Each structure stands twice: as structure tokens, then as C-alpha cells.
């Protein structure tokens, strides 16, 4: 191995393969630019759904909502994920990236796809929402852009897999791959399945839009589209859970409570998540109850179980690491003494709590076969997924960025004071935003809708005043969250393009607790459990988990009760 090809980050000890490093940077930069575009659209869309402001005209609103959905959900997240895949393979395994040239071809295709799709949406004849449900037609380039992007991403996935093979062959590590790489592998396997479904649904739809195919069945389209749309959310979950584990390791030197449990939980994702596109089809015509029940529950909620396990083991591993350092007082000293002003940690922790409490609970509740009747396509749905994909995935990626700026880009984090506050603005703003949407959705307010007052319609309808209040709260909180997003863009762009180089860990731009140097195994006397309570190594986390469960049960029960009050249906 030639030495020039690798550089070792003096502070973190991470070893970067230069060609891989350039690719990671390119993907991350594109991702952040897209996040900016999506963020501008988010602002305008939010200001339109805020009833007192109602900013845009209807056609612009639907156009920008399409742009926001596609850019955020597909282009921002997947571009960043490819950077993470390269990091988790090449960097964590200290291995050269397989075929960097081909990786650039993948990058080029992704970028081209982004441009082609965005131009189609900008043209105004592709305002069909990211789901592009047939038979509503869009400019063919809308689908073509998505297809090109998907092919590029698929190349990235295969390069990740090839790099794992190279690392094994060249024996760059001993034993098994790290847990975080294992999580990335999970994400990658799901991604390959997802992209295949995407091809099955989008290629015919593209041909249909060009006039080569006569008819695409609407029900069939939805089944296959959601194999893409839902599984891609599983890529995100696997990826951001990996990022949580990575950050726990980076900031605290935390080790997984047990490799076996965490890896099995990742495996459950692969085994069961694929079935779950059903929960988008619970009120579609003609699907049998048995099919819906089995599939919406991902085969008896075993994948939900997996997320509940990660929800315990990630903070649990932090608690154990903190207790080993002597923060053993009471149940929560470990948490109190955590580095709350370090955005790598604070962002990750808000991401974890928000994903679990807001995104997780609401997702399982609305994915219950019968309860979906009172929630389907209301604004509750975007409320739920902004908690998963924005608080969960996006905020986790943002936190990781604060680590990548000094280690990957070798730049100091600019405006450290702003960086410190950023996760709070973004995380708390988004939480209130999501909760307000869920509240309004419970009152029946629709998603993807320009005018909840029905001003121009022949027949009138009025929502209760509380629905308007909630949509107003949504607007205010959304603007706060967007401010948090703008802070992130300001910090990252300034650091990466104009930042001062780093010289040492103390010049990172903010205080780091400890970067990536895993502690030599300190085991307290009598084992980890002795540093905890009740024979539990992580009693504080356990209590939090029980609190989560109680919240879950109560909210689940309330929704059944609400359902029982609607008209009998059979």
C-alpha cells in the first residue's frame, strides 16, 4: 500500500484513503447544496400552509411541495448516505475504496439525475408530488432524473460492497467488521432492494409518460412504488442508527452493550422491513385484511422490536461508558454530565429521543390497520415523517457533519457558538412542528392541500378553530426549524469553503469531549452492572425506556378509543 494514498487524521486516528476522501467530500457537498434548495422550498411551503400567511399561489405551492419532497427525501438523504457508506467501508476498515473511477461515474449519474429532475419540476409540468401516482402525468424527465439518480446510487452501493470484499481480502482489519459498518451494510442491502423496486416502477412509468405504454394500473403502481418509498425509509433508519452508534463511540468511546443484540437487531431490519410497504396501503381498495395485518406489522412488529432495542442499547452504551468514568451518582448523572454544548452529541441525542417518542410511536399507531382510517393522508402523516426523517435522519447526519468538518475536511468549525445552538433550534423547532401537524391531522386537516378554508369551492366546509391554531403553531415552529437548518448551512459552508485549517483537537472550533479514541477497556470493579443499579448496567436508560413504553401504550389506547367513536364500517 502506497503511503501517499492514505492519510491519518492526527487527532482522531482515522485513516482516510485519499480517492475515497475526495468522493465523500463531493457527495457531502452536493447533499448540503440540495438541503439548501429543499430548505428554501420548505420555508415557502410552510409559509403557505400557515393559514394566517398563506403566501404562495396554488400552482407554485404544489410545484414547490413536489420539489421539497423529492430534493429532501431522495436527493439530500441518499447523497449523504453514499458518503456515509464510503466512510463506513473505506475509512473505518482502513481500506482502499474499490474502483474510485467507477464511483465517480456513479457520482456523475446522481448529479445528472438531480439536475434533470429539478429542471423538470422547475419547468412547471411535473408538479405531481414525489409519489407521482399514476395516472396523473408528469414531464418524462421527472422520472428520467429519478432513474439516473437511482442507477448512480446503485453503483455506490456496489462499490461499498466491493470495498468490504477488498478489506477482507487484504486483511485490513481483524475479526468481524465494526458494528457501525455492519449497520451500513444493512442499509446498503436494503438500498439494493429499494432501487430494484424503483426501477420496476419508474422505468415503465417513464415509458408510459413517453407514450410507449398504454396504461399503468393505479393499484399495482402503489404497491410497487411503496416497495421503493417505504424501504428507502428503512435505509434511512439503518443509516441513522449506525450514525448514533458511531457518535456514541466518537464522543464517549462507548462500546455496544452487546454486539450480538445490536447486530441481531440490524438483521431484523433486513428480514422484516421489506414487507412494510403495506402500511401505506391500509385503506386502498381490494387488499385483504390478512395481508394488511401481517405486512403492516412487519411480521408481528419484529422490526419495531429492533428499533426499540436500538433505542435502548445506544443510550445504554453511553450510560455504561459514562458510569465507567465515574458518573455514577443517582440514575441520571451520566446524562447530566454529557457534553450538551457539543453539537455532535446534542444533535445525536435529540435525534434519538425525537425519533423514538415522536416518529416511532406515531408511526406504529398510524400504521395499525384500523387506526389508519382516521389518519390516512391527513397532515398527521407529514407530522410523523418529519419526526422520523428530519429529526431522526437529518439531524443525525447534521451531528455527524460537525465531526466530519475537522476530520474529513480538516477545517475548523466556523461560528462555534452558532453550531452549539443549531441542534436545539432544529430539533426543538421540528418537534413542535411535527406535534402540531399530528394534532391538526387528528382534527382531519389534509396533507398536500393549498387551502384548508376552501375559499373557492362551490360547497363550504370549516375546520374547528383549534385546527387553525395548530396550523399556526406549525408555521411558527417550522420557521424556527428552518432557522436551525440555515444555521447548519451557514456553519458547514463557511467552514468547508472558507474555514481555517485545524492543527490540533483543541482547534476544532468547539470543545470536543474526546474524539474517537476508544478507552482502553475500563471495567469497574464487580463488572459494569456494579456501576449501575438493580443489577442493570444502564438503569437510567432502562427507566427512560419504561417511560417511553408507558407513553406508547397510553397514546395507542387513546387512538383506539378515538377510532371507536367514528361511524361503524365493515
Amino acid at each position, binding site marked *: 500500500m502506497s503511503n501517499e494514498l492514505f492519510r491519518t487524521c492526527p487527532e482522531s486516528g482515522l485513516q482516510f484513503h485519499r480517492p475515497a476522501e475526495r468522493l465523500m467530500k463531493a457527495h457531502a457537498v452536493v447533499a448540503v447544496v440540495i438541503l439548501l434548495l429543499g430548505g428554501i422550498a420548505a420555508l415557502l411551503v410552510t409559509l403557505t400552509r400557515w393559514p394566517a400567511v398563506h403566501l404562495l399561489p396554488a400552482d407554485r405551492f404544489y410545484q414547490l411541495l413536489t420539489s421539497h419532497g423529492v430534493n429532501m427525501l431522495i436527493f439530500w438523504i441518499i447523497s449523504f448516505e453514499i458518503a456515509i457508506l464510503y466512510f463506513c467501508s473505506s475509512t*473505518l476498515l482502513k481500506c482502499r475504496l474499490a474502483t474510485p473511477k467507477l464511483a465517480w461515474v456513479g457520482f456523475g449519474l446522481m448529479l445528472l439525475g438531480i439536475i434533470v429532475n429539478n429542471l423538470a419540476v422547475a419547468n412547471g409540468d411535473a408538479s405531481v408530488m414525489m409519489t407521482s401516482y399514476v395516472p396523473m402525468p408528469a414531464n418524462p424527465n421527472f422520472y428520467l432524473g429519478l432513474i439516473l439518480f437511482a442507477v448512480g446510487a446503485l453503483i455506490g452501493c456496489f462499490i461499498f460492497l466491493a470495498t468490504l470484499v477488498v478489506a477482507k481480502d487484504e486483511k485490513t482489519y481483524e475479526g468481524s467488521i465494526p458494528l457501525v459498518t455492519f449497520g451500513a451494510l444493512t442499509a446498503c442491502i436494503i438500498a439494493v432492494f429499494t432501487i430494484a423496486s424503483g426501477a420496476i416502477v419508474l422505468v415503465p412509468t417513464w415509458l408510459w409518460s413517453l407514450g410507449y405504454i398504454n396504461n399503468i394500473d393505479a393499484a399495482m403502481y402503489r404497491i410497487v412504488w411503496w416497495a421503493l418509498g417505504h424501504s428507502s425509509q428503512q435505509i434511512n433508519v439503518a443509516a441513522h442508527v449506525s450514525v448514533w452508534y458511531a457518535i456514541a463511540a466518537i464522543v464517549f468511546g462507548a462500546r455496544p452493550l*452487546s454486539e450480538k443484540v445490536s447486530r441481531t437487531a440490524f438483521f431484523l431490519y433486513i428480514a422484516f422491513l421489506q414487507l412494510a410497504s403495506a402500511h401505506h396501503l391500509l385503506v386502498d*381498495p381490494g387488499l385483504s385484511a390478512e395481508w394488511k395485518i401481517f405486512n403492516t406489522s412487519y411480521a408481528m412488529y419484529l422490526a419495531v422490536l429492533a428499533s426499540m432495542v436500538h433505542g435502548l442499547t445506544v443510550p445504554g452504551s453511553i450510560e455504561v461508558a459514562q458510569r465507567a468514568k465515574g458518573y455514577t451518582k443517582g440514575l441520571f448523572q451520566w446524562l447530566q454530565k454529557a457534553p450538551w454544548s457539543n453539537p455532535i452529541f446534542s444533535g445525536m441525542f435529540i435525534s434519538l429521543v425525537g425519533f423514538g417518542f415522536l416518529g416511532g410511536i406515531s408511526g406504529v399507531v398510524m400504521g395499525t390497520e384500523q387506526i389508519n382510517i382516521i389518519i390516512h393522508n391527513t397532515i398527521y402523516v407529514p407530522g410523523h415523517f418529519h419526526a422520523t426523517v428530519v429529526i431522526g435522519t437529518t439531524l443525525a447526519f447534521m451531528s455527524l457533519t460537525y465531526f466530519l468538518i475537522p476530520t474529513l475536511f480538516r477545517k475548523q468549525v466556523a461560528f462555534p457558538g452558532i453550531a452549539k445552538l443549531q441542534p436545539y433550534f432544529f430539533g426543538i423547532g421540528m418537534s413542535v412542528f411535527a406535534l402540531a401537524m399530528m394534532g391538526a391531522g387528528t382534527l382531519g386537516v*389534509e396533507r398536500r392541500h393549498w387551502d384548508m378554508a376552501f375559499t373557492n*369551492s362551490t360547497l363550504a366546509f370549516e375546520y374547528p378553530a383549534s385546527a387553525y391554531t395548530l396550523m399556526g403553531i406549525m408555521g411558527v415552529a417550522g420557521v424556527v426549524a428552518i432557522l436551525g437548518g440555515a444555521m447548519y448551512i451557514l456553519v458547514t459552508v463557511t467552514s468547508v469553503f472558507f474555514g481555517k485549517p485545524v492543527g490540533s483537537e483543541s482547534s476544532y472550533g468547539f470543545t470536543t469531549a474526546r474524539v474517537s479514541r476508544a478507552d482502553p477497556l475500563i471495567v469497574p470493579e464487580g463488572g459494569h*452492572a456494579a456501576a449501575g443499579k438493580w443489577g442493570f448496567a444502564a438503569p437510567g436508560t432502562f427507566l427512560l425506556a419504561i417511560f417511553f413504553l408507558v407513553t406508547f401504550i397510553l397514546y395507542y389506547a387513546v387512538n383506539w378509543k378515538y377510532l371507536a367513536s367514528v361511524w361503524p364500517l365493515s
Partner: protein
Amino acid sequence: MSAIQPPAETVWWKQPLDKVEGTWIAIALVWSLFMFFMMPFWHVYGKQNLSSEAYKTTPQAYMAKTQAMVDQYTIRTETDAKLPVVRPPPGSDVYLLGRLWQWWPLLELEKGQTYRLHISSMDWQHGFSLQPVNINTQILPGYEMVLTITPDTDGEQTIICNEFCGIGHHNMVGKIYVTEGET
């Protein structure tokens, strides 16, 4: 070693579980199974379940059936557009269609009676959303969905569209009036 390094024990799968993990997995598994069984339970003991009854159809065929019902049971018209209000007999098959951008026709039903409500789309996908009672389903072209409904509150219910269906989506409104039985 930490989660970004290979596991310290090469045979990590033999490492024993901590009590905190084992306990939580057991609790979470029980809850997961409970939630799973809640759904079939509600099919047996609950009153709000969607049927899976649906038929393949075409816009023309569905339009013909709806028109026949409108011709037979219209009791009045509303607004300048003369939208028909249809009052089909209790227990009968009732046809509602979604098209760009209205729900047609308006319906008048009797409280406490059961109807077989058929819904289909003439063009793109629509979202049947009945407010304020809050019942939401997806409506597809080419598919005729049948819901057996029993209105148990009287007054005016509004059908809005909550699947994006183009530029007039937010104007797509229909009505179901529920009246007390006439005794």
C-alpha cells in the same frame, strides 16, 4: 472496542447479554405481540373495519351505475351548479364518484341505517376524507371500493379530497347529509 472498531472479542456472539438488555427485549416483545393481536381482535370485536370488497371497473361502467341511481333517487338540487342530492333507500347500494374536481352526487342518508357505499374515481387518484367524523380512504381509477357504513351521528358531513389531484384539488368538496329517520 467501540462501535466503530471491530469487536474486541472475536467470538462476540458468545458474549452473555446484560440483564438490562434481556429484560427490555422481553418487555418489548410482549408489547409487539400485543399490538399485533389487537388488529385481528378488532376485526372480531370492533366496529370499524374496512371490507376488502372491491371490483375492477371502468369509468364508463361506473358512471352509468351512478347516473342510474341519480336518475332514480334525486330529491333536490343545490347551488347554482344544480348538484343533485340523492336519497337512496336504506340498505341499498349507493354510488359516489370522485372526479376533477368534485365528489358527485351529494348524498342524503338516514341515521342508524346501513348502506353499501361504492366509491370510484373517473380520472386520477383521490382521497375520500369525510369530515368531521374523520374517515379516510384511498380512491383509485379502475377500482370500485365498497364500504358498508352506518351513519350514527346526524347533521352535515363534508367529503374533502386528501390525495393531491392537480390544481383544483383544494376545491374538491362533496356532502353527505344525515337525517333522523322520518317517523
